[in-house]
């Protein structure tokens, strides 16, 4: 087994095989090499299933890659809770980018344990930055709470919605709309897209200082992509993000420590048969964490 710091050294020299093996090593062990540079440029892309995130990312990747950026895409996909397996098919929608030297696409199963994705996502982004990947795009599953949590790990967030779905208004309730830096309404070639965009704009305008952009795009036809890329380039990470990112890292490390706790199964059994209360369970966990370290 090659040492991860050796892998990092050769990955930094441009060896794709080492980079790829390094990401596996981080995913499997949770270990990460020491990286000095600050985390780089990370765009999160989120939105409801079927809104066209992957196709849109494919288009944006092409723009960035043609202008000389080195683009890495991390596509997160759901892990089946039943079998533990995952079907990672985002490759299908990013056709034509598989041979560019400056495009790297990696599928990442969203993990077997809750909270397990973010502790590895962070070092993976660090490694990619260290290896000279200048545009890192993280595509998320598209639904649920984990969504919100991954959104907090990136330094800018693009929210994608389709026409006449209304999902994005639902997203407002979940807080995703609040987190988004740029909003794209995809499938502008279909009827309803411009009114959907208008709807979102008017919803944003309820807050007087909200000047976030709502962009109409068609990933399929390639319309509006240049404008979207320019807006994303211009957007500065909000200064509230730093705090949110640290909070999220803390929570996810905590979750990971919790689910990998040696006594967790016993404690859950005891909770099931009612011999301890939830509060007691927390006390047991916290005190043993304090004694034994995480």
């Amino acid at each position: 087994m090659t040492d991860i710091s050796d892998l990092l050294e050769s990955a930094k020299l441009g060896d794709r095989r080492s980079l790829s093996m390094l990401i596996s090593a981080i995913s499997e062990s949770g270990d990460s090499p020491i990286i000095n540079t600050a985390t780089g440029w990370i765009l999160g892309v989120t939105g409801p299933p079927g809104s066209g995130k992957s196709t849109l990312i494919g288009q944006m990747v092409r723009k960035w890659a043609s202008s000389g950026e080195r683009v890495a895409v991390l596509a997160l996909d759901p892990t089946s809770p039943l079998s533990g397996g995952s079907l990672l098919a985002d490759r299908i929608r990013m056709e034509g980018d598989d041979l560019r030297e400056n495009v790297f696409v990696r599928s990442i199963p969203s993990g077997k344990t809750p909270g397990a994705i973010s502790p590895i996502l962070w070092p993976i982004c660090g490694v990619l930055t260290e290896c000279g990947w200048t545009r890192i795009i993280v595509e998320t599953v598209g639904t649920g709470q984990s969504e919100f949590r991954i959104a907090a790990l990136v330094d800018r967030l693009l929210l994608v919605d389709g026409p006449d779905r209304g999902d994005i208004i639902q997203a407002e309730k979940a807080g995703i709309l609040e987190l988004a830096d740029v909003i794209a309404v995809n499938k502008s070639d279909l009827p309803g897209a411009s009114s959907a965009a208008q709807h979102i704009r008017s919803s944003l305008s309820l807050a007087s200082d909200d000047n976030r952009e709502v962009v109409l795009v068609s990933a399929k036809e390639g319309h509006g992509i240049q404008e979207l890329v320019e807006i994303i380039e211009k957007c500065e990470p909000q200064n509230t993000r730093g705090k949110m990112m640290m909070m999220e890292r803390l929570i996810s490390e905590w979750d990971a420590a919790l689910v990998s706790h040696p006594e967790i199964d016993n404690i859950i059994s005891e909770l099931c048969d009612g011999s301890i209360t939830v509060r007691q369970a927390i006390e047991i966990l916290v005190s043993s964490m304090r004694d034994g370290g995480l």
Partner: protein
Amino acid sequence: MRLLEVILPLATYINMRIVIAKPGLDGHDRGAKVVSRALRDGGHDVIYTGLRKTPEEIVRIVNDEDAEVLGLSTLSGAHDSLIPKICEQLIENRLGSVIVFAGGIIPERDIEALFRSGVRAVFGPGTPTSDVLDFLNEALIRKQNGNPVGVGDDSGWNWND
């Protein structure tokens, strides 16, 4: 304790990263999708490439995804040129430890040549998906015991024999 007993065998369950690819120009991928789904249900992480990938693209995907296994599905009759080419390129790109299997419409007389290229199993139409899972288990056990099983390994072993 009861929960622990349920979880322990799962923890030792082996999960592999598998790329399922469609080289060549045929446009039918139901078989590839059925296999992908079965492997997922078998607990593996499956990356499906989509249709009409060139050998170069497939090798790149196997590298970037750091897959341990590559499954190739062809129905067009181009297997005899494309699959050996993919095997060669895997080896050239330091991916000789990848386990390669093939499926689709592959005549009996062509199978031996594929084995010589480093393919470890060929599955024809009507194969129960559990066969593919059994093959992967067997291949993995061989790999863990240090027996040659990768596409670049010198091995006389194949699943069909």
